[in-house]
């Protein structure tokens, strides 16, 4: 199985970090994987996106043009990438930041007020991880088990104090109905 994941939003929302978590989760599972950030002028205050491919086979292109899973944290990203999602794919929307609904009828759409949940729980910078918690609940490309090891790798030693809050954010998303 190959899963192509695209995460998109504004610079500063932790788009690349979210991708790194999934990449490290894949590494823990022993999967083939690639992580490709957008780099350049759009990172500085503009839009940021991140391609992650997880697979049991060697990976061809690391550039996700037809995502199976799309995670969006701002409206321009939903506008830009909604049509690219494969039929039957999944779109995860931060509904605090994006008011409109997904227009496509041939995909599964999930609405999570991630930014609001993050603020209410005192972890305002971790809406990205709340979204990922929900993504992992609704998808089968990687099991929820083993998140601790992946979080430990992706949270650098310097920021080890952020280990618990990242797990908390994932759990908030994972248990969100």
């Amino acid at each position, binding site marked *: 199985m190959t899963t192509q994941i695209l995460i998109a939003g504004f610079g500063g929302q932790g788009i690349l970090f979210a991708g790194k978590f999934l990449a490290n989760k894949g590494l823990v599972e022993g999967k083939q994987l690639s992580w490709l950030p957008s780099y350049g002028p759009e990172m500085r205050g503009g839009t940021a996106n991140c391609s992650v491919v997880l697979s049991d086979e060697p990976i061809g*292109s690391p550039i996700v043009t037809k995502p199976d899973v799309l995670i969006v944290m701002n409206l321009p990203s939903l506008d830009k990438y909604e049509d690219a999602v494969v039929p039957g794919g999944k779109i995860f929307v931060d509904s605090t930041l994006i008011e409109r609904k997904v227009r496509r009828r041939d995909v599964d759409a999930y609405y999570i007020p991630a930014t609001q949940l993050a603020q209410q729980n005192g972890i305002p910078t971790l809406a990205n991880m709340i979204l990922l918690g929900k993504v992992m609940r609704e998808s089968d490309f990687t099991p929820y088990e083993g998140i601790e090891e992946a979080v430990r790798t992706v949270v650098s030693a310097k920021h080890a104090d952020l280990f618990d809050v990242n797990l908390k954010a994932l759990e908030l998303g994972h248990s969100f109905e």
Partner: protein
Amino acid sequence: MSDKVLMKGNEAIAEAAIRAGCRHYFGYPITPQTEVAAYMAKRMPKIGGVFLQAESEIAAINMVYGVAGTGRRVMTSSSSPGVSLKQEGISYIAGSDLPCLIVNVQRGGPGLGGIQPSQSDYFQATKGGGHGDYHLIVLAPSSVQEMADMTSKAFDLADKYRMPAMLLADGTIGQMMEPVKLAEPVEHPFVEKEWAVTGTKMQREHHIVNSLYLVPEQLEKKNFERYERYKKVEENEVIYESFMMDDAEYCVVAFGIAARVSKNAVVAARKEGIKVGLIRPVTLWPFPKKVLSETAEKVKGFLSVELSMGQMIEDVKLATSCRRPVGLCRRSGGMIPSPDEVLEAIKNMQRGEE
């Protein structure tokens, strides 16, 4: 898989260089290769190595020239506009028969161009770049693992043939992360090279490292000698990957990130019953001429897929002596073709033939 680590392509180059015994790095920051310099800045001081941010790319390559003359492993890295600045120094290093590693993580050009990935320095890397009769060994990695492996390979080949080697990557491979298994660090006890300029201590004749030969007979002789070595490189050091070529009627030729995209297109085309495969040159110089020439006897056509206006296509035509049509699928300026675009080009090639 636990022995694998996640690294950016640029970081993998730096770590692999250190493990290959390189203790001298000279560079100047430029997107999208700055992580190489940043990694070296962190690590070199801790292991007794030298990291030096030069005042310019020109200064950096001449510092490389200096260290290369002592026989030590040395490197510089940059991206396209910066590598243009280095060309004079590269020609001098080639003319002095010195080994070193030059990394080019390409971005779109010409001029300052952009910062997005490109392969439009193919001509510069493989056809000279600087002035005079010379070649570089040019390796084109297409994964983070190969960024590491080819770095170490480049140092070995440069030493073996006493010539500069270039790692020709692009912004995508430089910026992406993949799991990578790093080689064990090789302790390279410094071996005095018979030609190195390390001080005579009044014990031996002077060694001279130089590229100036004012007597044309001498310069010609030097160049002929050098080309004898190049011939050996062409005979012994060609590397390529063959993908789904066994029963192929059409052959895509692509390197680096273009080859990764092309693989997806080849797999998609196979699902539609089109017998197509991929030959991926890993060494761009020496170019895999022989396999392409042999392939021309078996296939109906070739397709060169490039992040340039069409540069490698000339070598594909030369290698196959134009016996089969060679199509081109190209994007430029920092754009990358999608697998669908390559698939469409494969179908066009098939339609043109049948």
